[in-house]
């Protein structure tokens, strides 16, 4: 009884001064949400407009041309859009998977093994985070040209596999999620490095790996400059570069705005689907942290 009244009293006391601070974050978050969603909703509305409606009707008035736009997009140059979509899935999916694997193993190693040069490697990686990948694109192109790989799928996949920030993330996550005692126990039971990695470390790191996978997937999905520089053949283009060829069609040709906007909308769908399906892993991530503390 006394406890509850005190709790109520405390709550009352706490509630009042908190209120103005409680509203502000919500308002800021709402503003942020509007800021992020407004352009997306614009794309959604603009994709429904026909050529004639796009520049003549008011911005958020839905049009009547969605189906025609989709049909035009699917028919453009014999359906090259779907090829670009597939390419993007290969680059983003394959790149993110490989990158996650490399990051997880490197992060685990850096977190749990003591060896000479460990700090040096880690510091170099931290330094690597500070180098924007844009700066590296041209040197990478020259390197890949000299080994004859420029223009191939690998020229886009390989540079994105080693991602310093992901390794950093994996190291931090492995440091927190894998208790040393557990590894110790495994070693006493006679488990080798490979078994420890597979049976102990990786399952514990799974939520962190999902995070890395999603980060990398989105980063590669959105990457423009690297494939733009690396790839010459338009049948290997990802969506970003492919859609750009519609926009910069040269002076003779108008930009194909309808197709670009519809294409941008369609290219969002896999990302949204991925996030919706992967969300539950993120939730495990949060709760597992809570239980441990």
């Amino acid at each position, binding site marked *: 009884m006394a406890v509850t009244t005190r709790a109520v009293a405390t709550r009352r006391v706490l509630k009042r001064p908190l209120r103005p601070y409680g509203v502000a974050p919500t308002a800021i978050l709402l503003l942020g949400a509007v800021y992020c969603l407004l352009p997306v909703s614009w794309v959604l509305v603009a994709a429904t407009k026909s*050529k*004639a409606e*796009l*520049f*003549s009707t008011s911005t958020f008035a839905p049009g009547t041309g969605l189906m025609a736009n989709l049909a035009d997009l699917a028919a453009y*140059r014999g359906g090259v859009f779907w090829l670009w979509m597939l390419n993007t899935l290969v680059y983003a999916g394959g790149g993110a998977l*490989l990158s996650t694997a*490399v990051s997880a*193993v*490197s992060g685990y*190693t850096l977190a749990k*093994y*003591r*060896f000479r040069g460990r700090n040096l490697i880690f510091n170099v990686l931290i330094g690597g985070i500070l180098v924007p990948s844009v700066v590296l694109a*041209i040197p990478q*192109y*020259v390197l890949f*040209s*000299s080994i*004859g*790989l*420029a*223009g*191939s*799928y*690998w020229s886009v*996949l*390989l540079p994105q*596999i080693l991602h310093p920030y992901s390794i950093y993330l994996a190291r931090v996550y492995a440091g927190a999620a894998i208790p040393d005692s557990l590894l110790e126990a495994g070693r006493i039971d006679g488990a080798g*490095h*490979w078994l420890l990695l597979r049976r102990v470390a990786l399952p514990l790191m799974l939520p962190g790996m999902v995070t890395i996978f999603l980060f990398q997937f989105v980063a590669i999905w959105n990457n423009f400059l690297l494939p*733009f*520089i690396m790839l*010459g*053949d*338009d*049948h*290997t283009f990802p969506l970003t*570069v492919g859609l*750009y*060829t519609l*926009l*910069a*069609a*040269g*002076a*003779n*040709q*108008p*930009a*194909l*705005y309808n197709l670009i906007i519809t294409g941008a909308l369609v290219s969002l769908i896999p990302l949204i689907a991925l996030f919706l399906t992967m969300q539950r892993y993120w939730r495990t991530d949060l709760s597992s942290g809570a239980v441990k503390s």
Partner: protein
Amino acid sequence: MRSGRLAVAGAAVLALALSAGCSSGSQESAAPTAAQTSAAGPVTLTYWSWVPNMDKIVAVWNKAHPDIQVNVSKQAGGDDAAAKFLTAAKAGNPPDLIQAEYQMLPSFVAADAVADLTSGTAQVKGEFGEGVWGLVTLGTDAVYAIPQDSGPMMLYYRKDLFEKFGVEVPKTWDEYAEAARAVHKADPKVYLGTFSSKDPGSFAGLAQQAGAQWWSIQGESWKVAIDDAATKKVADYWGGLVKEGVIDDQPYFTPEWNKALNDGTLLTWPSAVWGPGVLSSNAPKGKGKWEIAPLPQWSAGENATGFWGGSSTAVAQKSPNQAAATQFATWLNTDPEALSLLVTEGAVYPAATKGGAALTSAPDYFSNQPDFWQQTAAISATARGFTFGPDVNVTYNAFKDAFDKALQNGSSFSDAVGVMQETTVADMQKSGFQLAR
């Protein structure tokens, strides 16, 4: 000890992943390398272009020439393709053929990225007009590309709204200014035209019409005269109208510009022969309401215009199959069948004089002007260009910066031309070009 073994294992895993990558990657990279090895027998040429449906045009060639197969790769057009080509040429794996805009060609030549085609094109010269041919020789004895399309400038105007506002089609730029004042006075929301600070190509064309010679080659050195009297005259003319407020200052090709074309608040567009494609896509509502006329002249009785855009087909210096590539480029740009395909499939205005034969019925958007192509041909005959310099991209960027600033601060347009000149000269000196004083 333990960690040492782990490091080795990790390296092995990495090496495995890499080698797996290479082995399956070789399948993808097989196509380009195949093109470089064969000397006799069938060759495969890669061709970067952004002409729509170029793959269909090339398919016709491929069918007739099993020994020279051309592989088209559609690129983002204009400056982007040029930058990408220069990078690829420096890295040593450029495509065999490249669509080169006339203003970018000198920078390709300066970078040794394109081959001199003189020997393979002796008989081709007669297929093109003097003005266009000068753009691929840069005024020298060499031939650096085969002209593909050209962009003679003309005046697009809204016939219905000209009648509504009671203005005549201007014959001179003075009349154009008068019309601009009259229209804007009648309806303050309406502008006769707009000055775009984002389209240096358009400004270059207008300067060409006025007789400007931005670059010329004198012996071994370049002469730069972007701030010549003709160019300053053009700049100050537009600057005066913008300052007066009777001409709008929004750039071309923006959504706002499209909107203005659609809702009839913008009445003219001094543009090139490729205008119908842009208008039909960006201003579909205006179909049948636009017409073309020659550009207004600087003094009555004159008859001249400039070029905006246009491109050629160049062969890479590093291409191992230059002869085959030249053969294809010649066919593409001079053969009657190819020219007619360029017109119907690629929607380009061919540079070759024979190309006129393929231009029979007016573009759909201009069905109200059945003699569209006859008018165009007459205008085209009066077009004059100038030699472009080796760093046009620098000049063009200087145009955008300087004229943006001039619009923002309301400062003089001819000063902005001065900035273009200084920037260009400074860049050419820095790059080691010899300049004539």
